[in-house]
């Protein structure tokens, strides 16, 4: 393999995705990532269709986790309500898709649902950031939004709560949501079970690479500066309020994408996506995996949800106890999360092994949370 030469043609491809704001800028990292993606892609082949069905849900969750890692880890906006965008997009897709279940209709539903969650995030973000709401208050407000949606959707059981043919269904949820499909008129593809898995995996990888490029761009530097010291960044002439709004909106869009993929996989959505337990999960993934590492959060989401699923299968009720305890222990012992800690070990190991005076990568900033 020629990936080892940093001057090779691959280096030029890699460049936009690398920089001081992301961990893992070495050829070895990219090789590892390629292997991991290949393993995920091989899952349905190795374990059958059922693995694809379950796996797609985990991958959709990973998108949700990544949306939180992006806004919290890179811009310091701790949102406890990412599930609000996740769920709203799911409901929006259901409403449009049930009413117009044609290829065109489903394509419109996909676009519309992500648009709805994006606009929702933009409106909420505009309201909060331009209203001067900060820090803890943002966190609480986003959580309250999710809880209110939970209460609201829970009381929509009556027949009057319907949009066209789509009944919201209260706590019973909205069932009969069609599969994902893309096309216009009669030309297009309906995405089946296996296809859905690969679409979700593709969306996850594409989002990951896109976010990496973004956080290593000029805008990414401004984001991180806003996280580190908002007042100082504003003094340098950056419009930090606008930066936060843009970041929050992108986060909402990604969560919405996850929500659509989640809903179309299950063909079903109910108010529990907004519930306090669901709202806690992204926070758990990002805290445990490490919020400054997009990949760490994805890994934590996949691992934790897999364990949760296995425990539920075996009839155990202890999954939530385990997840909650894990969260407490990790934040107490390893406040920055697992992936950043591992990254530091790798750097130390490399430094020991290689005595040449290579400038050491600055360790990812970890102290912003106590602000």
């Amino acid at each position, binding site marked *: 393999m020629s990936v080892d030469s940093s001057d090779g043609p691959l280096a030029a491809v890699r460049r936009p995705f690398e920089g001081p704001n992301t961990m893992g800028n070495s050829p070895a990292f990219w090789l590892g990532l390629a292997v991991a993606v290949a393993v995920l892609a091989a899952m349905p082949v190795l374990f059958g269709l059922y693995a694809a069905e379950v796996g797609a849900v985990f991958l959709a969750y990973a998108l949700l986790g990544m949306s939180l890692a992006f806004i919290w880890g890179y811009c310091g906006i701790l949102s406890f309500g990412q599930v609000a965008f996740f769920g709203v997009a799911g409901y929006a897709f259901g409403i449009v898709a049930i009413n117009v279940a044609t290829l065109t209709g489903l394509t419109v539903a996909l676009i519309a649902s992500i648009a709805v969650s994006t606009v929702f995030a933009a409106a909420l973000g505009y309201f909060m950031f331009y209203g001067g709401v900060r820090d803890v208050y943002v966190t609480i407000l986003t959580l309250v939004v999710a809880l209110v949606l939970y209460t609201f959707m829970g009381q929509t059981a009556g027949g009057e709560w319907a949009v066209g043919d789509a009944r919201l269904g209260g706590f019973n949820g909205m069932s009969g949501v069609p599969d994902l499909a893309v096309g216009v008129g009669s030309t297009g593809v309906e995405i089946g079970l296996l296809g859905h898995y690969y679409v979700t995996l593709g969306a996850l990888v594409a989002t990951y690479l896109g976010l990496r490029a973004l956080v290593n761009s000029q805008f990414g530097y401004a984001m991180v500066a806003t996280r580190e010291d908002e007042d100082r960044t504003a003094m340098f002439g950056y419009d930090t309020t606008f930066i936060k709004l843009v970041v929050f909106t992108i986060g909402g869009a990604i969560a919405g994408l996850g929500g659509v993929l989640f809903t179309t996989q299950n063909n079903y959505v109910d108010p529990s996506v907004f519930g306090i337990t669901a709202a806690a999960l992204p926070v758990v993934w990002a805290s445990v995996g490490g919020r400054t590492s997009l990949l760490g959060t994805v890994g934590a989401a996949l691992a934790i949800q897999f364990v949760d699923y296995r425990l539920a299968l075996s009839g155990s009720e*202890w999954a939530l106890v385990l997840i909650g305890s894990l969260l407490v222990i990790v934040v*107490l012992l390893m406040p920055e999360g697992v992936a950043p800690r591992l990254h530091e070990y790798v750097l130390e190991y490399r430094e020991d092994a290689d005595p040449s005076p290579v400038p050491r990568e600055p360790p990812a900033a970890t102290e912003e949370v106590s602000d």
Partner: protein
Amino acid sequence: MAGAGLLNFGFEFVEIFAFIVLATVGLAVIFGMMGIINLAHGEFILVGAYATTFAFAAGAPLPLAMLTGVVLTAVYGLVLERLIIRHLYGRLLDSMVVTWGISLVMIQLTRIVFGNTAPGIGIPFGQLPIVDGPVYYLVLAVVAVGVLGGLYALFMWTDFGIRARATMQDEATARSMGVDTDRMYMSTFAVGSGLAGLAGALYAPVMTITPEYGTGFLIEAFVAVVVGGASVLVGTVLASGLLGTVNAAVTNVAGTFMGQVAMLIAAIVAIRLMPDGITGLLADWRENRGEGQ
């Protein structure tokens, strides 16, 4: 008829005001004093409710059962503070995340240990004449006002209150003046926990007790704390008054659900206009007036 309508509105207001005050005050004490939003607040309330209902089922008279609930929750808060929370002072967002983890564990443990239901307690004191509602809600309102008065006395008139407020204002100076700030945090957390337990105990006869019992208090408590701002007593009273009025007025006309919606809209508008809460606005206003003179 207008008289009866007004009476209904008054009763509605008293009921909602008491609920918001009691749901909020424990959270507000901990937030105001330490800046920590305790995401496990609902589960502290849960501890109070379970202790009360099981003490009552074991034969204790209701007031004693409720006292058990308060004391147990305070002790529980104390233990948690020593074991976990005290490592998180100065790490505000971390403390929120950790308390959320505690909340998840507690809800699920409650479900595993006690199942999905708990023995109920009948509503004491019977029904009111004229308006439609139990006398017990008026008792709750009296208790709510009593709690606010008691807190005022505790923080303004006692030695403990002065030390606690000194710690809140300037920890380093307070410590250099000989205040054991560590102990102040510990006892304040216990007081806040006890108040959460009180809410759980008082509402045990009114609400169905399930492992998600505490979640039913969260929206009101969080909204009132955010609208109220950092000052514990003034913020809680004003926020509860504002939200309670809006909620009661709309509930009276359009039903419980619309009342809640109206309250949330009022809260959102209030936060938009006063990002630091009502008490933040008051502080600004006071400052401006000081400059004018």
